[in-house]
């Protein structure tokens, strides 16, 4: 039976060969719930269980509001900490859940449940990492299992050499423009083609992360030598079997993108598919109040390297707030060791502790009425980062960095050396 990569991973976790449409109860390799979603999992968990199925396979990071900005949040975190202590699970304070899981925990071929909508991120390592709510997380923590309808796969093939100034963020914004905010609802997006094969894992994680914004249940890139290199760089060389969709596997849809003529892209508020070339917005001279470089989408060391090249020896545009939030402790240390943090501080930026930062409007850079933010994150909804009248434009780290130099939304191509 010809299978997609996703069908193969589901098959390996339920003991029989399955195809799209089948209903299965699958064994999970890992369950994640963070400082917001875990709080809501506690009550349902204790209604059906006393102990988690395996404390080694439950991951509890504090990232959405850490360090805690309020008494209310501290209360939730204290409840979660008590649960984690009782269950023998360490609480991890090392950055955004998806980034830390990618660095330390996700292996090719895994089936992972995360109580967070951006869980598809981990598919950049060739795993199926699926977002759910707190009740599903509670059941999974109790049983190690979850039910699924095996999804159809949409294959997105990307070819062509990316022009200078364009990155995987620009590619995925172009895909989102085509797919729309629910174009992949209930589906897996499989990214393939020569451009994706050329991307390293950090660049792939940006593709899979943004797939959540198109409704995807999961997103995946077939694991290969890039995956092997990433695992080695993160000090955990893993042997994995080749895993890819069969040549005659059945895809619900196939989309092709030639990115050789791509321009830097930006998503206008408040929709993810409202994407236009940055040069078009630049001509409107949109004044920027805040630039946020961070989140599970785009704040890995490769992103900070781009920003550093553009900011080195320069000053932030007067009056503009620039916030850099490394995605993880590891990224933060890398940025310190390479001298980026000192350069960013000299530039006039605020470098905050690893975590979700202001992406979800809870702390560390909450926007006021009508303010404009250029953000490297993934969601430009009304009210997402603060006031419902604030405007969030989503773009690559290069576009965000260029906009911090000029104070208006700026095409990065002439600033990228």
């Amino acid at each position, binding site marked *: 039976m010809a299978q997609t990569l996703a069908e193969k991973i589901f098959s390996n976790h339920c003991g029989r060969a399955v195809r799209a449409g089948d209903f299965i*109860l699958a064994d999970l390799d890992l369950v994640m719930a963070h400082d917001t979603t875990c709080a809501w999992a506690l*009550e349902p968990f204790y209604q059906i269980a006393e102990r988690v199925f395996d404390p080694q396979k439950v991951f509890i990071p504090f990232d959405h509001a850490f360090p805690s900005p309020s008494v209310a949040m501290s209360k939730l975190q204290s409840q979660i900490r008590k649960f984690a202590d009782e269950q023998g699970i360490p609480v991890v304070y090392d950055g955004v859940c998806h980034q830390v899981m990618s660095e330390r925990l996700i292996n090719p071929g895994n089936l992972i449940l995360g109580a967070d909508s951006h869980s598809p991120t981990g598919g950049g390592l060739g795993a199926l990492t699926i977002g759910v709510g707190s009740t599903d997380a509670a059941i999974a923590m109790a049983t190690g299992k979850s*039910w699924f309808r095996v999804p159809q796969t949409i294959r997105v093939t990307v070819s062509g050499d990316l022009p200078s100034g364009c990155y995987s963020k620009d590619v995925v914004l172009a895909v989102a423009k085509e797919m729309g*905010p*629910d174009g992949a*609802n209930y589906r897996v997006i499989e990214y393939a083609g020569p451009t994706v094969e050329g991307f390293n894992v950090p660049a792939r994680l940006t593709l899979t992360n943004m797939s959540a914004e198109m*409704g995807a249940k999961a997103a995946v890139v077939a694991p290969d030598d890039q995956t092997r290199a990433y695992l080695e760089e993160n000090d955990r060389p893993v042997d994995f079997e080749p895993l890819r969709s069969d040549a005659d596997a059945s895809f619900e849809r196939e989309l092709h993108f030639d990115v050789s003529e791509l321009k830097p892209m930006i998503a206008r508020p408040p929709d993810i598919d409202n994407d236009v070339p940055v040069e078009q917005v630049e001509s409107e001279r949109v004044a920027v109040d805040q630039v946020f470089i961070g989140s599970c989408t785009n704040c890995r060391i490769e992103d900070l390297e781009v920003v550093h090249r553009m900011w080195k020896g320069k000053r932030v545009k007067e009056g503009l707030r620039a916030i850099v939030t490394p995605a993880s402790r590891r990224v933060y240390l890398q940025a310190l060791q390479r001298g980026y943090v000192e350069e960013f501080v000299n530039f006039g930026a605020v470098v905050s502790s690893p975590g979700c930062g202001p992406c979800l409007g809870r702390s560390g850079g909450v926007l006021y009425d009508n303010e404009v933010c250029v953000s490297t994150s993934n969601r430009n909804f009304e009210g997402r980062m603060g006031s419902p009248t604030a405007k969030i434009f989503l773009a690559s780290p290069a576009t965000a960095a260029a906009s911090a130099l000029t104070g208006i939304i700026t095409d990065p191509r002439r600033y990228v050396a």
Partner: protein
Amino acid sequence: MNWKFGDNINTDLITPGRYNITTDPRELAKACFIEYRPEFRQQVQPGDFVVAGHNFGCGSSRETAAVALKHSHLRAVIAKSFARIFFRNAINLGLLCVIADTDSIEESDRLELDIRTQALRNATRDRTIPIEIPGMMLRLHQEGGIINFLKRNGLSALADLEKF
């Protein structure tokens, strides 16, 4: 009444991140649509419907959105389509979500939903609207949510969900 909304009503509009720092469902219900439709939380009545377009509940996985709607004591949420995680949360909580073409429904229309016969009637316009309620949604709504179902039947009953 029917609280009518458009397409892509995301979980940040239902329970904005800044208001959902609580595990008290009543507190969350007080924050439901707090900025997007501020009169909702004061004026919503038991038995009201939320009626929306495509992709209702997109965005964050926060179950608070489904909890807030459930504790607003709606009869059901009716939408052309639902985002995956929201729909899953609603199934788990027993919040009834109904898939239907909502274009013809106005806020003042009197809707009659009969889940036994799976029929939705717009009494004001004397019109029947075809609906879809997946078996698992219907059964877990009747069970009072998946946690009540598992408490009554044991964790091994997870394997029975397929039969719904």
